[in-house]
């Protein structure tokens, strides 16, 4: 039964994944056909050489890092809809935590998939409604002088602070090492992107957990 369900999820996931890929590639093609212009290959190649070096390498790391945590359905949904670290991953994990189910079980699989699906639809609706209905007013909300600006500047500390409080209490022994490593890395490389930094802190946390497990400290 277990193998069956996961096998089916992977089959659905791959089908939707390929559909999304084809659809995405159609976007620039339609834009070019519609405008009757095509990009200069030399310029495009120079831009892509920079972007791909950075993002295709990050993509490999992301796939390896997130797949074990998001579950099968959650993974396929998250990678198509994007905004994984700042939204889908914390959303899925917090749903599993609330429902008291474990990742890598069928129960965890369905709960995280439902949470990530709901989150994807909510985001899509908010962006669509925002662009179509509120685009004239939006700049005022995010403007320098807006009262809401400080709130939106601090979305990530607020989100991860709330998440940390519920998660850290249960696993407090694992906490100090990755934070200290992260802060030290940032002191020497302050502009490091969060994707790369995350890789470093995850390695630190997992290595710490392995050592503590071996020494029976957990």
């Amino acid at each position, binding site marked *: 039964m277990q193998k069956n369900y996961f096998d089916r999820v992977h089959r*659905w996931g791959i089908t939707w994944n390929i559909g999304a890929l084809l659809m995405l*590639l159609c976007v620039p093609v339609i834009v*070019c056909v519609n405008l009757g212009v095509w990009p200069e290959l030399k310029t495009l190649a120079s831009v892509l050489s920079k*972007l791909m070096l950075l993002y295709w390498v990050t993509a490999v790391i992301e796939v390896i890092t997130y797949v074990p945590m998001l579950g099968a359905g959650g993974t396929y949904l998250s990678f198509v809809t994007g905004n994984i670290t700042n939204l889908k991953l914390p959303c899925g994990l917090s749903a599993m935590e609330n429902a008291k189910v474990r990742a890598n079980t069928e129960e965890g699989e369905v709960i995280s*998939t439902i949470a990530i699906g709901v989150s*994807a639809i909510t985001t899509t609706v908010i962006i669509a409604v925002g662009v179509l209905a509120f685009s004239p007013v939006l700049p005022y909300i995010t403007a320098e002088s807006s009262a809401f600006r400080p709130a939106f500047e601090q979305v990530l500390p607020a989100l*991860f*602070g*709330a998440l940390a*409080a519920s998660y850290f209490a249960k696993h407090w022994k694992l906490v100090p090492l990755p934070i200290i490593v992260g802060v030290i890395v940032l002191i020497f490389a302050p502009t490091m992107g969060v994707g790369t930094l995350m890789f470093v802190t995850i390695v630190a946390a997992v290595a710490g957990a392995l050592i503590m497990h071996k020494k029976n400290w957990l």
Partner: protein
Amino acid sequence: MDFSDFKTSPVMLAIALGIVAFVTAQSLFFIVKSWKHAKELGIEKETLKNTVVSSILFTVAPAISILATVIVLANALGTILPWIRLTVIGNLAYETTAAQTAVEAMGGTLGSEITDPKQFATVTWAMTIGSIAPLIFLPFVCKKLQNKIGEAVNKSEGAKKLGDALSAAAFIGIISAFIARAIAGTSSDGNNAGFMSVSVLIVAVIAMVILESICKKFKLDKLQPFTMPLSMFIGMGAAMLFEAVLPAEITSFMWR
């Protein structure tokens, strides 16, 4: 929306709506399949409902900040291309960098509007090709990786325990990266680590601890799923409050 501008033409709008339909259909498909299977597994309806409502609440604030990125990019690219890019695969940090790299390579900046269709076409290609890598890798690795992990953690009771510890550790690693950034990071928009980022972090932590203990003490099981989004809103509210009541030297104080 100005339909006479090629960046926000009816064709562009149609592409965007098509993508919105695709993403919504895929999400609904997986929700329905999971819901059915959850019932087969005997998961209570109440748990599923709570998952839906708390996920919606959890998503609102980050989604609005994603919308804010659309608005920032709209200066140069019009509203529709950023909308498309942030609806599929896109994420806050990536799309801004990708657009910036492409626009700058052609001698422009994100601050000024692109009026040359050729430049616009180049940016569209660059943002698309740059971001599709995960969709190319996933079909090959996702199943293999997950089967391996499944086998490894379900081998024995000890392996299960280690598996739990390692997945907790990986998640703590992710949270730690963001906490480290709030403590000591810098950001391209000048919103570096300082009084605001650390105090919002602390307020959100305290709010969560208090809300969780209230839930436990008064056995408010219904409130439990909402403690996380509530704490996030309290943290964001604190940022607005600090900005309004504290002197600017304090709220704008950054040590990075």
